[in-house]
């Protein structure tokens, strides 16, 4: 019997690549949902147009879920990086998730997989060195996309308590790097001279894009209710990461850096600079043990994932 899984946010990196991977599975039909039709749709993925920001998105989703007899939903319709349109981001990420939750309940879909991020724990000086899944989600008050995810996670947790029939999996990957992945963070790390915070050198954690997809694939195919951090083993200080890539560090006193609103890498996020730079100031490393037990240990450690991304970048510069 064929199962059917729906993926929201088909045009996001994770949505597209996860759809490609799952479409290779036998006995599985895939429905990809997004606002616009993606270019280069993977074979075996059926596209349906849904705009999660519309008030009638819930009803449209219920129709699709019923018609296709959807057995699982993978919710990945989040911004890859913050945009200056704060209202729009909120409408899509938080309210869009709410519409989706209503539709999942309305259509009686038994499984939901939510893609979140370890950024929801927030960078705080009083964080323990390893944040477990039970740690309160404090986010960062100046990072609006992180706040949207925190709110979404709260909505999902409340909703899940009221709908025990649906088993909910939440995956929280840390910053993703890899040969093909790109977002505001990788753009910042790709600069040849990287501004850092003078006097701070936090331990960072990265995961390779393929390892992250592995975890999502296994979570989508198996049955793993609960919350999991998806992180690579090992931590590396920011300065070591940058030096290994042969980059120049530009240590700037934090009060000065926080005033450089127009700094090129930060101007497009719509946030105050703290919303990003505090993640390079304090610790927010997550404990991955529960995820490794459920989905297997990642192939790349933090350092190897970073080196893979850097060497791909180097190769790209040769013509």
């Amino acid at each position, binding site marked *: 019997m064929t199962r059917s899984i729906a993926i929201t946010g088909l045009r996001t990196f994770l949505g597209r690549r996860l759809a490609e991977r799952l479409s290779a599975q036998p006995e599985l039909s895939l429905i990809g949902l997004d606002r616009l039709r993606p270019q280069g749709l993977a074979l075996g993925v059926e596209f349906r147009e849904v705009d999660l920001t519309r008030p009638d998105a819930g009803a449209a989703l219920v129709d699709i879920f019923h018609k296709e007899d959807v057995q699982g939903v993978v919710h990945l319709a989040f911004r890859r990086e913050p945009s200056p349109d704060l209202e729009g981001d909120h409408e899509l990420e938080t309210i869009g998730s709410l519409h989706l939750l209503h539709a999942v309940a309305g259509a009686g879909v038994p499984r939901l997989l939510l893609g979140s991020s370890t950024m929801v724990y927030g960078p705080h000086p009083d964080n*323990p060195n390893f944040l477990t899944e039970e740690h309160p989600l404090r986010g960062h008050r100046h990072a609006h996309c992180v706040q949207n995810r925190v709110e979404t996670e709260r909505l999902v947790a409340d909703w899940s308590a009221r709908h025990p029939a649906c088993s909910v999996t939440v995956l929280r990957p840390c910053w993703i790097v890899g040969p093909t992945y790109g977002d505001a963070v990788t753009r910042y790390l790709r600069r040849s001279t990287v501004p850092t915070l003078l006097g701070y050198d936090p331990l960072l954690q990265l995961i390779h894009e393929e390892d992250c997809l592995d975890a999502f694939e296994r979570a989508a195919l198996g049955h793993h209710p609960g919350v999991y951090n998806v992180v690579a083993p090992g931590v590396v200080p920011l300065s070591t990461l940058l030096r290994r890539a042969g980059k120049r560090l530009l240590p700037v006193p934090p009060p000065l850096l926080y005033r450089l609103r127009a700094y090129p890498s930060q101007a497009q996020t719509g946030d105050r600079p703290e919303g990003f730079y505090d993640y390079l100031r304090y610790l927010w490393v997550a404990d991955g043990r529960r995820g490794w037990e459920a989905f297997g240990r990642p192939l790349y450690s933090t350092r190897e994932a970073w080196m893979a991304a850097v060497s791909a970048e180097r190769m790209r510069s040769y013509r």
Partner: protein
Amino acid sequence: MSAPGDRDLWSEALGGLRAELRRRLGSVRAETGEPEDPEAGVDWVALVDDLRRRFGQLGMRERSGEVDDFGLDPETIRSVRGALGFLRERWWRTEVVGLEQVPDDRAVLFVANHSGLLPWDGLVLADTIAMAHGEARRPRFLIADWLITLPFVQPALARLGGVRACPENAERLLTTERSVVAFPEGVKGAAKSFKDRYRLQRFGRGGAVRLALAADVPLVPVAIVGAEEAHPILFRVEAPARALGLPFLPVTPTFPWLGPLGALPLPAKWVISFGEPLATPPHSPDTARDDLLVARLTEELRAEVQRLVKEALAIRQGVFT
């Protein structure tokens, strides 16, 4: 915009320059006695590249890049070992008593009295154990929250084995077979004024004992005498400290009078005295939840550390001898 023709012109000019350099430098090479190769000469580009690479490697060497999961960098520890050894042996003439009572085959929770603003006591204690039982047994010392927020201090302490004091961290360290040095007096201990320097403050809320019982590791009481004289706090100033985000600003005989020099510790004589591991009931999952037992053991531990402090004071003849 440069046309392709311009580029050819440029490379031609550069080629000419290079040939000229080689012709003139050919004689230099003959004097230094290197095998002369009239065709090659000194390849300055390669030389500069080579030098840059070597300096780059030197730069890399100060950071090995291999930190463990709590940020300890063996390379940093190796590089400061000489300085730390000097401080311990020559500057403070540290005397170590009762080291044979410390188990060297398993993780241990050391509980020590705390004094001094900078965590010299934790650093020296960790170093003493690492010297005696090998680098693999180097304990991590827990550091107070307010030090964590300070720029420069936090990364440096983390590379040297300092870990933020919180139950999650200590538990993770102990369950992964790494010893921990805890200072249950906390900031109260660091802020002791000079007249109370040998009197122990309340031991938190029994967190250290609870952790040891839960992780089933021995609790070793330790007295560190001398750290309070390294930075004797005459009195505390609070108003200007708040503006800087510090809990208080210490006034010592040297700080702030001598400026940054005042951060140098005084050469008091140190005594580190280890006690016998505390007798705890046999391990069971319930012992850590028994609040009365935890409170009783915490008080026992405090009394034992206080006794060790008195004993250590008897070993010293004076503050500096």
